[in-house]
């Protein structure tokens, strides 16, 4: 960075004022809704009941008791394992899928067909989670479509919702079915920016369609892929509780209890233990931040791309 004289600096700032004003609402929103409430995590270090003041003489501070309690909880390792496995499998399938879909849609010679399929693939994204799980239950319930077909072919009925082994495939495949088209949109947009000249040059050199994907399309969207990679690694342990909770039964509890569902149950149901739930949630967020930093550092080292 080169030194700028004071005068120039003021000029530059004055020029930027309209833009800064335009930025202000966004900054204010993020500040008030994302940064200000952070002081609430302090209850992770308290013996807290709803209605207690977060800062007052009566606040009961307990230090790291809620955290040590969680580390000693019999559920600690199962929760970590369940959350991690669900997320990692979801990531392994869910990350490459939209890229492949985007590349193949882009490779279609008829652009109209590409649009058509894109719309079809995007539509499931708009199904709400509750409806989605309801559909799963209709299709995979003991007397649902899949089981009826299996029974018709003389196979045993299988309780998909009661078996530990069926939970992760059902969860991951249905999530990916819902979202692969939607996630592909960003790559499709990136692909549309590829210079047609490059394709023409490759064609003149005798490159096949597949070779053009490998040598033209993929390098073109590589920056986008690495940014998306960093972001999804950062959110790796951040799976939401809603879907797992909806799909949870006594039968699959051993694999369907995630950090997020446990936080929900401890913090909002039964005798609420919000301090404990907050401590667990905070711990989960710390893991996410660490993962994000690792991913970003690695990406910076091995490629030119990084978030910061």
């Amino acid at each position, binding site marked *: 960075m080169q030194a700028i004289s004071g005068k120039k*600096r003021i000029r530059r*700032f004055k020029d930027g004022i309209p833009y800064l004003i335009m930025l202000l609402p966004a900054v204010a929103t993020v*500040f*008030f809704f994302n940064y*200000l409430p952070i*002081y609430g995590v302090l209850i992770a270090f308290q013996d807290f*009941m*709803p*209605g*207690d*003041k*977060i*800062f*007052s003489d*009566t606040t009961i501070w307990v230090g790291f008791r809620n955290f040590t*309690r969680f580390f000693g*909880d*019999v*559920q600690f390792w199962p929760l970590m394992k369940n959350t991690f496995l669900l997320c990692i499998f979801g990531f392994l399938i869910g990350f490459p899928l939209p890229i492949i879909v985007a590349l193949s849609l882009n490779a279609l010679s008829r652009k109209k067909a590409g649009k058509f399929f894109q719309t079809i693939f995007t539509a499931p994204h708009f199904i709400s989670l509750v409806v989605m799980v309801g559909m799963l239950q209709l299709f995979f*319930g*003991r*007397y649902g479509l899949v089981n009826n077909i299996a*029974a018709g072919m003389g196979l045993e*009925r299988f*309780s998909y*919702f*009661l078996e*530990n082994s069926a939970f992760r495939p059902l969860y991951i495949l249905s999530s990916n079915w819902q979202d692969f088209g939607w996630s592909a949109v960003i790559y499709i947009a990136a692909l549309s920016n590829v210079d047609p000249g490059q394709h023409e040059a490759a064609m003149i050199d005798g490159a096949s369609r597949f070779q053009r994907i490998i040598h033209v399309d993929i390098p073109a969207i590589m920056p986008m892929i690495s940014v998306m990679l960093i972001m999804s690694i950062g959110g790796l342990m951040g799976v939401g509780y809603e879907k797992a909770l909806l799909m949870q*039964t*006594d*039968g699959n*509890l*051993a694999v369907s*209890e995630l950090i997020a569902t446990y936080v929900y*149950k*401890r913090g*909002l*149901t*039964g*005798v*609420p*233990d*919000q301090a404990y739930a907050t401590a667990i949630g905070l711990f989960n967020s710390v893991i996410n931040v660490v993962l994000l930093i690792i991913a970003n550092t690695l990406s910076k080292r091995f490629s030119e791309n990084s978030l910061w």
Partner: protein
Amino acid sequence: MKSLKRIGAVVLAAAIASSLAACGSSSGEKNASSQADVSALVNDYGFQWEDTSKPILNEKGSQEIKFSVYSSKNASALDYNDMKIMQDLYDQTGVNVSWENVSESVYSQQKSLIFGNSENRPDAIYHAGMSSGEIIKYAKRKVLVPISDYLDYMPNFKKLLEERPDIESQLINIEDGKIYSLPRIEEMGLLEFPNLLFLNTEWTKEVIAAGKVSGISESDLKDGLTLTSTQMSQILAYFRDNDMNGNGKTDDERPLSFVYNNWQGNQCDLYGMFGLNDNLEHRVIVDGKVTYTVTNDRFKEATNFIANWVDEGLIDKVSFEQSQDNFLANGKGMETYGAFYWWESETVVSNPEHYIVCNPLIGPDGDQTICVSNNPEIGTGELVIFSDCQYPEVLLAYFDRYYDPFVSAQINYGPIGIVYEEELDGNGMLVQKPLPEGVTTDELRLQNAPLGVINLGEYAWNNVVHMEPRAKLRLERLEKVAQPFVDEKVIPCPNLQFTLEELNTLSNYESNMNDYIRTNLISWLMKGGVTDGDWETFQNDLSGKVKLPEIQKVYQDAYDRYSGK
């Protein structure tokens, strides 16, 4: 740039200060009600509490005190402000209560918000559903009014506590010896046995005619039939293999159904075949000792036996995944249930006359017992009053009227004038009005009765209100097929009060233990049983990392205090 930084700092500081101010400014000093306040109430508002037949405050319309009470309500109930019983009580007492209703489904989430909003809490929560753990913690923070300090203003409740020390000991907070909530008491003797076994007689007749079951004849098929587990499995196997309902399909018959781990109609009674008094918590009092059925080796035997029934298709596997609504819906229309566990047959199937209620099954070793649930007939934590309430003595004198048996009956079933006639019968009891066209008893009741703070016990059933016909029918059934089979040493676990330390133990371990038991149990039942090795691991885990002995000790100590040992 410097000035910009300064502006930024000022804005930031202001924002933080305002946010802190919002949570820092507490609602000043609580005005503790003293003797002077009460005499002021007596002078200004004509407050009286001794004569329960007269108004508590001045006549309606004169100078009033208004209370706001928060309450959940069921979906079909009217707004409590529009309920006739509430308006009648306003007329009779002169106490103006304005109700704020939310639906039951939202309430559990709202509860924390109400407690959290310390600036603007209502005076009380009705249908509060407070656990003893919540009460003890909020009481320690002085958020709740110690109701026992106001017993002088509550003649009905005071009398109740004097007559029933057992109820008092279910309510008293161990830490400071005070009572913080009003209970709901509805003693019918119905809740202890949530599972009755019903059997399809039409289908069973066919089994007998086909000679596939030994030892019973068609004339035995009446209420109170006793079957051995062998006979039951023969009958269920026939149901499984044949087209019993005559629709041309042999695979839509459901031999034995229930709703796994539901509060009613669950699997627990099957364990009675092995002499275990199981329930959803797997916790009963045997001979004064808090006992967990899952630590008994016979539990393994029973689980394997039941798992075998599941494996053979005698128990419909959908029983483990269906909800109560699915179960009830499947019973209507085409007859598909051979046998099922439920509260009563009338709500399950469209033709209850085809079904008889059976005695508990006799197990392979000759055991026959019925299981007792821990569903309490006394609900503690039904009403709590916030310490912000300005005149708790008036509000408590008002809610004390709810314990008058005639008011209790109307709170629970619906008001005089809608559900009951204005005139009492010859014995001084309430008389049911004929139903209006096109309305069922349940609909009328749910619409007009708030339920909640009541005291309906033996006195009320004998002197004030007749039990509903359905409840009477169930009582008759229980007398025949349940009461004789209760192990006399076994009683359900009552509501218990814990110390803070005990509560910490429970909140650290109990829900994890329940999850641990639940996940293991369902996988054993679904997958053909438990091996000796798995059972040993299970027992080691229970006494080791799951900390069952610690939990058991907490309950034992609490029970010993309750029973006065």
